[in-house]
């Protein structure tokens, strides 16, 4: 009993400490101490589960200190966690304008995630899928075959599968798992082969995103937003989804 009480006490203490960290960070931000605020937001994120709100606030603090690329990275992270988080989307657009990164045409995935909560969509799809699967099966129970149940079951199963597939395809945590952001001052260069002297295919300005396909030593092989594939140095390239 004493042990349990001690555990509850320490858990409560940890939660209070995190809340204090966040409150302190927000207070620093209000006071214009953006560097300190950013550090505290980062510490809070290290100690707590990821939160779209805190990433957004961290992005704002970094933005105030002139770190546009890092702020854009954190706005992107906020949007991965909550694609419907409109302030983060607006802030990212402004940061991209400052970085000189042209807007990307919104695809159907972005439109879907901006309107529908993905986890709810995935769960609804899963429920429909299994409901359909069992309903279809019930058509074969004793007391005679029931065609209506089978048709309803198949329809429900297909609908559920479609929803699950849509949620899976649209989830930025899956689709952006191999995406990284260029944080190097002056950007990076996409080259034809993994050598410093190889042909430069394109320039990747600071803040631009790249899809990483493979790695060889200090070189990544990836695809630039325009579709050009090539090699770029790993230095200053930060994954959009932080490694565990």
């Amino acid at each position, binding site marked *: 009993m004493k042990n349990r009480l001690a555990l509850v006490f320490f858990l409560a203490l940890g939660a209070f400490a995190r809340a204090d960290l*966040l409150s302190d960070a*927000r207070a620093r*931000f*209000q006071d*214009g101490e953006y560097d300190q605020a950013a550090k505290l937001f980062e510490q809070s994120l290290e100690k707590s*589960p*990821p*939160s*779209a*709100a*805190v990433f*957004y*606030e961290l992005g*704002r603090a970094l*933005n*105030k200190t002139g770190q546009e690329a890092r702020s854009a990275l954190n*706005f992107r992270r*906020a949007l*991965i*966690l*909550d694609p*419907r*988080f*409109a*302030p*983060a*989307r*607006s*802030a990212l*657009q*402004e940061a991209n*304008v400052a970085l*000189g990164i*042209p*807007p990307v*045409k919104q695809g159907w995935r972005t439109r879907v995630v901006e309107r529908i*909560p*993905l986890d709810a969509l*995935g*769960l609804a799809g*899963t429920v429909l899928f*299994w409901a359909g*699967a*069992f309903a279809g*099966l019930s058509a*074969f*129970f*004793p007391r005679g075959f029931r065609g209506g149940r089978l048709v309803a079951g198949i329809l429900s199963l297909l609908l559920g599968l479609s929803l699950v597939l849509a*949620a*899976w395809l649209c*989830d930025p*945590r*899956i689709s952006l798992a191999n995406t990284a952001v260029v944080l190097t001052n002056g950007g990076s260069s996409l080259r034809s082969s993994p050598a410093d002297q190889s*042909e430069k*295919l*394109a*320039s990747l300005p600071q803040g631009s995103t790249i899809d990483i396909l493979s790695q060889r030593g200090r070189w990544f092989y990836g695809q630039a937003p*325009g579709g050009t594939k090539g090699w770029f140095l790993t230095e200053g390239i930060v994954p959009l*989804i932080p490694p*565990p």
Partner: protein
Amino acid sequence: MTGNTMKRVFVSLALSALLPVGLHAQEVAVGLSANQAQVGEPVQLMVTVRGARGADVPQTLEVKGLRINLAGRSTQFEMRNLKMSSTLTYTYLVVPQFEGEFTIPSFDVRIEGKTFRTQAMRLSVGGGTRVPQTPALPQNTAPLPPGQLPPPTEEGEPFFADLVLSKRKVYVGEVVPVELRFYFNSRIGGQVGERPNFGGEGLTVQKFSNAAKREQVVNGANYVVFSFQSAITAVKSGTLQIPEASLEARLQLPGRAPQGMGDFFNNFPLPQGMFTDNREVTIKTKPAQIEVLPLPKEGRPEDFSGAVGRFAMEATVSPKKASSGEPVNLKVAVSGQGNFEGMGAPVLTGDEGWRSYPPSDKFQSTDSIGFTGEKTYEFALIARQDQTRTPGVRFSYFDPATGKYSELVQEPLAVDAKAGGTTPPVASGTPGTPQAGKPAPSVAPASTPDVTVMAGGATSWTSLFSRREFLIANASLAIAWLAVVLVLTMRKFTESRAGRELARKKVVRDAFAGLKDAGPPDFYEKARDYIYLRLDAGADDLAAAAKIDSSALSPEAKASLHQVIERHGETKYAAGGSPPPSVEERQSVMSILKELEARYEK
């Protein structure tokens, strides 16, 4: 036959015997002694065949305006480390009939059943006649370091280099194609470096093309020429010294017979290359100079961004219809010849009402040195107000051929873009406590520090589909579903004819097995039950009797089965009962039933 003659024949035969062993891989190369000529001035076309002792070549080549006839054939042998290589040279005389640009087409050379196809060559023929003369050694032949160069021989210099500049008077920023040629006498073997060293102050050098190899006759000697193409760009005006270009090579130069032995070896028809001298050399071109003119200030457009060359421009827009906030992509392609690396982007005109972003660019070269090609700029545009036309595009460049600035203009393109912006609508928030965990109905400007952050969303980087709980729940449901499928399938099977038959067989087998353990009072009852089950006669004595009679059993067996049924009746219904079966009787019954079992099991 004298003694000396005998020795010559012996050595020649010995060397001939080595020939097939050491012949190198077959290779065919063609080259012209000059790429330019005058009408009536003969030019030599050399077809060099390596690694073969003979080849079938055409006697004449048909090219309108050129008379091309095979003039002769020569053979050279070379020996290195007891390996023999041979070079056959077929020489054609090409006599131009009239002026113009001619292409000598590729033709087939057959070597020991294999067909090799030569490369096509171009010959430029000028008007008038000129006294035929031997092609001279290029002007920029570099002097080689003392002590490295072997003495010139009657076959020509062993190697030299040449820098060919397409222009001597250029403008700052103008791209000038250059060619570095490294000549090696065809009698020399060895290896050359992959790329030459070239560069200097006040100029930038493009990457080199891969080395092109060809044969050329210079001063009557056959040379293998490695040429590298590149382009230079002057970055400041004035007289620009172009430093020497150098190429490392490891060569096997022809040597001399050992001292005092020259007279002896001179008596034999020894192959060339018998004595070789391996050397690492650096072959250099002569420095050159060009005059670099500054770009004129007069007539320089305000939006001139450093493009020097000759260009054309065209633009496309996509999509033609854009909804609110959707970007429109204006793609501008600038093509031609010039300094694509150094030039800036075209400028947009009349772009009020549009939000534009710095364009991305991509260069696609159509040559190996990046001099000719197409650079594509992509402008992302978002309409501030509803738009029916894109902005116009203007691109200014300096044309070194005319010495003047030129301007390319693209008129606006038709588009249907609805107004939209990146500035989000501002909504008020409640300062103070953060409210995480809720959906995000409110929109807050990023620049306002005292705005409450209201965000929901996930609290994990792991997607729903990768979470352990989700996977366990789905695995459990899948197992339950499969279990239901299994139960239903089994039930269906049990109810089916095959299932019933299987069940009956089991009952029969069990009944037969039960007989063995049956006690004396029950023996006949169980035996009768077994017979009923086996014959599928139900519980009817008459039906069982009929089945026994209609069975394929022997008459004795039938009688025995009838007897078993009767004995059961006696034991069950006779007053005072019937004595239990003896061991012999029991064995007899069992053997009949076994026969019945065996027959029906089949």
